[in-house]
């Protein structure tokens, strides 16, 4: 019965994504404008159709699909983190991995972007502009690799500081400390790299305005890879939900599989952060929302959390563009406000139900 319910939920979330994508391509600096009409009726007004094609295919569609991709990656990372650390508050942001990824991007920009740097000079000579806005595949891959490295290091640092995953409060405190310290280091790097500062400020607030087809394609590829890897490792998460001893007694080689899951978590987080900057709470909220709708195995939960994260960020991104149009609200600010409220509500509910740290 739960399997059928999960299938219905996947279908509903995918349908919601299609509808939100249709809405998303119609919302811009002028608020809502129906671009789908001219797009699908080229005979009526060829000029309007050409303009609609340009706006939709060059700007809004990659951005809207990119929002789904980043949300899906963060939702997946959240589900993996919560299962791996058996902690309902684990999320890429709270574990410090998003801050680590951001530091990785800042370091990469400082190393590659400065015209004085060797890498930067050679890249400028080859005509490749290095910035968070770049659509070059190599720049995007470089930023993603740097973000991945930063995310891995941040998770490992959090685990070392919290001395394992058993103690919820210690894990969260360690994650907060790592996040704050790495955030400060990011600012320090930017202080010495003023040419990257302005773009990175927008990046630190979280925005999908950097996303073009290259970034969207990269996120889609990584999402397929991470979802496949997470699905292959889902049994480990199910086993771990019964405790370490039981999981080990079932013959699961926990060490290498945990390392692989940390890799999935870091790759998903790093890729999302490298394309859209810091977007908080999507990774926390998506798995929780799924769990409130259906109780299911880790393999289904991860897919559902992914679809939920994608739909959430797509909706938030459209809202962020529309709320104060013609100005644009960074979507990371909106998710932080909404997600923070959601986290407080979760904590209030867990206190009311007498579930301490369990949420």
């Amino acid at each position, binding site marked *: 019965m739960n399997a059928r319910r999960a299938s219905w939920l996947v279908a509903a979330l995918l349908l919601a994504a299609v509808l939100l994508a249709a809405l998303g391509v119609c919302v811009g600096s002028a608020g809502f404008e129906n671009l789908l009409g001219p797009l699908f009726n080229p005979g009526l007004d060829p000029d309007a159709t050409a303009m609609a094609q340009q706006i939709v295919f060059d700007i809004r569609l990659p951005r809207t699909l990119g929002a789904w991709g980043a949300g899906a990656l963060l939702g997946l990372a959240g589900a993996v983190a919560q299962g791996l650390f058996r902690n309902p508050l684990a999320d890429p942001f709270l574990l410090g991995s998003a801050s680590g990824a951001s530091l990785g991007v800042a370091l990469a920009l400082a190393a590659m972007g400065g015209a004085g740097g060797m890498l930067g000079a050679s890249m400028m000579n080859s005509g490749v502009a290095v910035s968070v806005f770049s659509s070059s595949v190599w720049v995007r891959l470089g930023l993603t690799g740097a973000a991945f490295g930063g995310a891995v290091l941040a998770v490992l640092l959090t685990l070392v500081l919290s001395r394992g995953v058993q103690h919820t409060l210690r894990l969260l405190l360690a994650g907060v400390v790592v996040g704050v310290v790495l955030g400060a280091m990011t600012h320090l790097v930017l202080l010495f790299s003023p040419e990257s500062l302005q773009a990175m400020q927008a990046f630190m607030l979280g925005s999908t305005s950097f996303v073009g087809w290259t970034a969207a394609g990269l996120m889609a590829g990584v999402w397929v890879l991470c979802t496949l890897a997470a699905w292959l490792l889902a*049994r480990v998460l199910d086993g771990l*939900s019964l*405790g370490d001893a039981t999981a080990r007694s079932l013959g*699961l080689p926990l060490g290498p599989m945990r390392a692989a899951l940390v890799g999935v978590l870091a790759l998903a987080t790093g890729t999302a952060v490298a394309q859209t900057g810091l977007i908080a709470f999507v990774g926390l909220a998506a798995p929780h929302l799924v769990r409130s709708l259906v109780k299911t195995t880790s393999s289904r939960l991860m897919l559902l959390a992914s679809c939920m994260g994608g739909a959430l960020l797509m909706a938030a991104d459209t809202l962020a563009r529309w709320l104060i149009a013609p100005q644009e609200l960074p979507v990371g600010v909106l998710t932080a406000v909404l997600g923070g409220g959601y986290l407080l509500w979760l904590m209030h509910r867990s206190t009311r139900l007498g579930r301490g740290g369990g949420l």
Partner: protein
Amino acid sequence: MSATPAFNVPALEARDLGVRFGDAAILHGITLALPRARWTSIVGPNGAGKSTLLKAMAGLLPHSGTSVLLGQPLPDWPHRQRAQQLSWLGQNEASGDDLTVWDVSMLGRLPHQAWLSPPSAADHAAVERALRATQAWDWRARSLGQLSGGERQRVLLARALAVEAQVLLMDEPLANLDPPHQADWLSIVQALVREGRTVVSVLHEIGMALHADELVVMAQGRITHQGACADPATHRALEAVFDHRVAVRELDGQWVALPLPGQTASNEFSNGASNSATT
């Protein structure tokens, strides 16, 4: 790897097994052999090291010395084969609240399944048998988070039974179970032993432990006695390890442990009560 070792080979052996937590020694070089097709209960006062011994013998805890399963040192067993032969039911472990009763029980079949293969008909049959044995079949579609402590314990027991292992290790399996379901657990264990399986349990309920074939009596990280439950020497060892605060007696053909009032505790309580009355 032989799946059917000679019958006289012990199911599980501890050879000079030691466990330390930091500077504190919890187990002191324990050597022990547990016979096959028998139910052995490990008993002793709080802090005796019973659960630690069971976990170390299952290879779930770093330890010195060797644990031997069906004649083969534990580290020599490939992970999956070992998991097929040795089933574990722990106490106070995390329980996947989001998983359904069926999913939790099916986890017991993991050692029998290739990595990505779906559950076979044999897996389905084993899970159904286990759920029916623990009377949890009717809740198979419910999530674990919706169950009471006792119901949850029965599902976790079903998960351990679904492994269909030769050796079952259970740490406090009666936690949260009401008396009728404790009796059901007893019937399940006795049926398993009749099938030739070996059960080793850590129990606080001495009365239940006295239904076992053998008792291992522990105190302060050491074994003070191992013997048949009906043996008067075992009864004496049991009484001694609890400072003679329990007395083993026969009642309707069964051994029972009667708690005896502690002189020190009752004196202190009555002194305290009279002091507060006078003030």
